[in-house]
Protein backbone atom coordinates (compact mmCIF):
# COMPACT_ATOMS: atom_id res chain seq x y z
CA UNK A 1 0.00 0.00 0.00
CA UNK A 2 1.09 3.60 -0.47
CA UNK A 3 0.34 6.85 1.34
CA UNK A 4 0.74 10.53 0.59
CA UNK A 5 2.78 12.25 3.32
CA UNK A 6 2.85 16.01 3.94
CA UNK A 7 5.22 18.07 6.11
CA UNK A 8 4.63 21.60 7.33
CA UNK A 9 6.36 24.64 8.82
CA UNK A 10 9.66 24.12 10.67
CA UNK A 11 9.49 20.37 10.09
CA UNK A 12 9.09 20.91 6.32
CA UNK A 13 12.19 23.12 6.36
CA UNK A 14 14.24 20.67 8.46
CA UNK A 15 13.38 17.81 6.07
CA UNK A 16 13.79 19.93 2.94
CA UNK A 17 10.60 18.59 1.44
CA UNK A 18 6.90 19.38 1.33
CA UNK A 19 5.42 16.00 0.48
CA UNK A 20 6.12 12.53 -0.83
CA UNK A 21 4.26 9.47 -2.01
CA UNK A 22 5.57 6.40 -0.24
CA UNK A 23 5.02 2.67 -0.71
CA UNK A 24 4.91 1.15 2.76
CA UNK A 25 6.37 -2.18 3.87
CA UNK A 26 3.84 -4.69 5.19
CA UNK A 27 4.61 -4.09 8.87
CA UNK A 28 3.56 -0.43 8.72
CA UNK A 29 -0.12 -0.20 9.63
CA UNK A 30 -0.34 2.78 11.99
CA UNK A 31 0.87 6.38 12.25
CA UNK A 32 3.38 5.31 14.92
CA UNK A 33 4.82 2.62 12.66
CA UNK A 34 5.01 5.06 9.74
CA UNK A 35 6.75 7.56 12.04
CA UNK A 36 9.34 4.95 13.09
CA UNK A 37 9.83 3.93 9.44
CA UNK A 38 10.62 7.55 8.50
CA UNK A 39 12.87 8.18 11.52
CA UNK A 40 14.87 5.06 10.53
CA UNK A 41 16.05 6.97 7.43
CA UNK A 42 18.45 8.75 9.81
CA UNK A 43 20.04 12.18 9.26
CA UNK A 44 17.54 15.03 8.91
CA UNK A 45 14.68 12.61 9.62
CA UNK A 46 15.56 12.80 13.32
CA UNK A 47 13.56 16.05 13.16
CA UNK A 48 10.47 13.81 13.43
CA UNK A 49 11.76 12.85 16.89
CA UNK A 50 13.09 16.24 18.00
CA UNK A 51 10.07 18.36 16.99
CA UNK A 52 8.47 19.22 20.32
CA UNK A 53 4.86 18.02 20.62
CA UNK A 54 4.78 16.74 17.02
CA UNK A 55 1.23 16.64 15.65
CA UNK A 56 -0.19 14.31 13.02
CA UNK A 57 -3.31 14.30 10.88
CA UNK A 58 -4.73 11.43 8.82
CA UNK A 59 -7.00 12.45 5.93
CA UNK A 60 -7.07 15.99 7.36
CA UNK A 61 -8.33 14.96 10.81
CA UNK A 62 -6.12 15.22 13.90
CA UNK A 63 -4.80 11.76 14.71
CA UNK A 64 -2.60 9.91 17.20
CA UNK A 65 0.32 7.51 16.92
CA UNK A 66 -2.09 4.56 17.29
CA UNK A 67 -4.32 5.75 14.39
CA UNK A 68 -4.36 3.15 11.57
CA UNK A 69 -3.14 4.12 8.10
CA UNK A 70 -4.63 2.55 4.98
CA UNK A 71 -3.82 2.56 1.29
CA UNK A 72 -4.30 5.99 -0.27
CA UNK A 73 -4.39 7.88 3.05
CA UNK A 74 -3.04 11.40 3.37
CA UNK A 75 -0.83 11.64 6.46
CA UNK A 76 0.55 14.99 7.63
CA UNK A 77 3.22 15.67 10.26
CA UNK A 78 3.63 19.17 11.71
CA UNK A 79 4.60 21.19 14.80
CA UNK A 80 1.90 22.60 17.13
CA UNK A 81 -0.19 25.21 15.31
CA UNK A 82 0.39 28.95 15.79
CA UNK A 83 -2.29 30.75 13.78
CA UNK A 84 -4.72 33.45 14.86
Amino acid sequence: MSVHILYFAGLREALGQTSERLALPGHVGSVGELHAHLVARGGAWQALLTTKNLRVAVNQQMAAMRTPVADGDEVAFFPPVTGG
Partner: protein
Amino acid sequence: MKISVQSEDFDLGAECAAISRGRKDIGAVASFVGLVRDANDGAGVARMTLEHYAGMTEKSLAEIVEEARGRWEVMDATVIHRVGELQPGDNIVLVVVASAHRGDAFAACEFIMDFLKTRAPFWKKEETPEGGRWVDARESDDRAAEKWKE
Protein backbone atom coordinates in the same frame (compact mmCIF):
# COMPACT_ATOMS: atom_id res chain seq x y z
CA MET B 1 -21.62 30.50 7.75
CA LYS B 2 -18.67 31.96 5.88
CA ILE B 3 -15.18 30.47 6.16
CA SER B 4 -12.36 31.92 4.11
CA VAL B 5 -8.60 31.37 4.02
CA GLN B 6 -7.17 34.07 1.79
CA SER B 7 -4.15 36.26 1.10
CA GLU B 8 -6.29 39.37 0.57
CA ASP B 9 -7.20 41.74 3.38
CA PHE B 10 -10.73 41.85 4.85
CA ASP B 11 -13.03 44.70 5.88
CA LEU B 12 -14.36 44.42 9.44
CA GLY B 13 -17.22 46.87 8.83
CA ALA B 14 -18.33 45.16 5.63
CA GLU B 15 -18.28 41.69 7.24
CA CYS B 16 -20.22 42.88 10.32
CA ALA B 17 -22.81 44.57 8.10
CA ALA B 18 -23.12 41.53 5.82
CA ILE B 19 -23.86 39.08 8.62
CA SER B 20 -27.10 40.79 9.69
CA ARG B 21 -28.18 42.24 6.33
CA GLY B 22 -31.84 41.58 5.59
CA ARG B 23 -32.49 39.93 8.97
CA LYS B 24 -34.54 41.18 11.89
CA ASP B 25 -33.90 38.34 14.34
CA ILE B 26 -30.25 39.19 15.12
CA GLY B 27 -29.80 41.27 18.26
CA ALA B 28 -26.04 41.03 18.75
CA VAL B 29 -22.96 40.93 16.53
CA ALA B 30 -19.60 40.32 18.28
CA SER B 31 -16.32 40.48 16.41
CA PHE B 32 -12.61 39.90 16.96
CA VAL B 33 -9.74 41.06 14.75
CA GLY B 34 -6.16 39.78 15.25
CA LEU B 35 -3.31 41.90 13.88
CA VAL B 36 0.43 41.46 13.26
CA ARG B 37 2.51 43.10 16.03
CA ASP B 38 5.94 44.64 15.36
CA ALA B 39 7.53 42.78 18.29
CA ASN B 40 7.24 39.30 19.83
CA ASP B 41 9.24 37.48 22.53
CA GLY B 42 11.75 40.30 22.85
CA ALA B 43 12.58 40.70 19.15
CA GLY B 44 11.44 43.12 16.47
CA VAL B 45 9.26 41.60 13.75
CA ALA B 46 9.80 43.10 10.28
CA ARG B 47 7.27 40.81 8.57
CA MET B 48 5.56 37.49 8.98
CA THR B 49 4.68 34.58 6.72
CA LEU B 50 1.63 32.46 7.46
CA GLU B 51 1.67 28.88 6.21
CA HIS B 52 -1.36 26.60 6.31
CA TYR B 53 -2.52 23.10 5.44
CA ALA B 54 -4.85 23.82 2.52
CA GLY B 55 -8.01 21.73 2.77
CA MET B 56 -7.63 20.76 6.40
CA THR B 57 -7.62 24.41 7.45
CA GLU B 58 -11.07 25.13 6.04
CA LYS B 59 -12.49 21.87 7.47
CA SER B 60 -11.02 22.57 10.86
CA LEU B 61 -12.47 26.12 10.97
CA ALA B 62 -15.89 24.82 9.91
CA GLU B 63 -15.77 22.17 12.67
CA ILE B 64 -14.86 24.80 15.28
CA VAL B 65 -17.82 26.95 14.21
CA GLU B 66 -20.10 23.88 14.32
CA GLU B 67 -18.91 23.16 17.86
CA ALA B 68 -19.73 26.76 18.85
CA ARG B 69 -23.20 26.35 17.31
CA GLY B 70 -23.72 23.32 19.53
CA ARG B 71 -22.95 25.31 22.68
CA TRP B 72 -24.55 28.70 22.06
CA GLU B 73 -27.28 30.26 19.97
CA VAL B 74 -25.19 31.20 16.93
CA MET B 75 -27.37 32.50 14.12
CA ASP B 76 -24.47 33.02 11.73
CA ALA B 77 -20.67 33.23 11.87
CA THR B 78 -17.84 34.44 9.66
CA VAL B 79 -14.21 33.36 10.03
CA ILE B 80 -11.55 34.83 7.73
CA HIS B 81 -7.87 33.95 8.16
CA ARG B 82 -5.14 35.44 6.00
CA VAL B 83 -2.11 33.49 4.73
CA GLY B 84 1.10 34.47 2.96
CA GLU B 85 3.31 37.44 3.74
CA LEU B 86 2.01 40.04 6.20
CA GLN B 87 3.48 43.24 7.68
CA PRO B 88 3.14 44.67 11.21
CA GLY B 89 -0.23 46.36 11.51
CA ASP B 90 -1.85 44.06 8.95
CA ASN B 91 -5.01 42.12 9.78
CA ILE B 92 -4.48 38.36 10.33
CA VAL B 93 -7.79 36.92 11.46
CA LEU B 94 -11.44 37.96 11.76
CA VAL B 95 -14.24 36.24 13.68
CA VAL B 96 -17.78 37.63 13.56
CA VAL B 97 -20.66 35.97 15.41
CA ALA B 98 -24.32 36.92 15.16
CA SER B 99 -26.83 35.91 17.81
CA ALA B 100 -30.07 37.06 19.39
CA HIS B 101 -28.26 38.19 22.56
CA ARG B 102 -24.81 39.49 23.45
CA GLY B 103 -23.89 36.72 25.89
CA ASP B 104 -23.99 34.03 23.22
CA ALA B 105 -22.26 36.27 20.65
CA PHE B 106 -19.37 37.20 22.99
CA ALA B 107 -18.85 33.65 24.27
CA ALA B 108 -18.99 31.98 20.85
CA CYS B 109 -16.59 34.55 19.39
CA GLU B 110 -14.02 33.95 22.15
CA PHE B 111 -14.47 30.17 21.92
CA ILE B 112 -13.90 30.17 18.15
CA MET B 113 -10.69 32.20 18.57
CA ASP B 114 -9.40 30.02 21.43
CA PHE B 115 -9.99 26.83 19.43
CA LEU B 116 -8.63 28.32 16.21
CA LYS B 117 -5.36 29.15 18.02
CA THR B 118 -4.84 25.56 19.16
CA ARG B 119 -6.52 23.46 16.45
CA ALA B 120 -6.52 25.12 13.03
CA PRO B 121 -3.39 24.19 11.03
CA PHE B 122 -1.70 27.57 10.54
CA TRP B 123 1.95 28.35 11.33
CA LYS B 124 3.63 31.75 11.69
CA LYS B 125 7.21 32.47 10.70
CA GLU B 126 8.58 35.82 11.81
CA GLU B 127 11.42 37.78 10.19
CA THR B 128 13.46 39.37 12.99
CA PRO B 129 16.86 41.19 12.92
CA GLU B 130 18.42 37.80 13.83
CA GLY B 131 16.77 36.04 10.89
CA GLY B 132 13.64 33.98 10.36
CA ARG B 133 12.08 31.98 13.20
CA TRP B 134 8.98 29.81 13.53
CA VAL B 135 6.72 30.99 16.32
CA ASP B 136 6.48 28.53 19.22
CA ALA B 137 3.06 27.40 20.40
CA ARG B 138 2.13 29.06 23.71
CA GLU B 139 0.98 27.19 26.79
CA SER B 140 -1.31 30.13 27.56
CA ASP B 141 -3.18 29.36 24.32
CA ASP B 142 -3.61 25.72 25.40
CA ARG B 143 -4.96 26.89 28.76
CA ALA B 144 -7.36 29.29 27.03
CA ALA B 145 -8.79 26.40 24.98
CA GLU B 146 -8.85 24.09 28.03
CA LYS B 147 -11.14 26.42 29.98
CA TRP B 148 -14.03 25.62 27.61
CA LYS B 149 -13.94 21.95 28.61
CA GLU B 150 -15.50 22.70 32.00
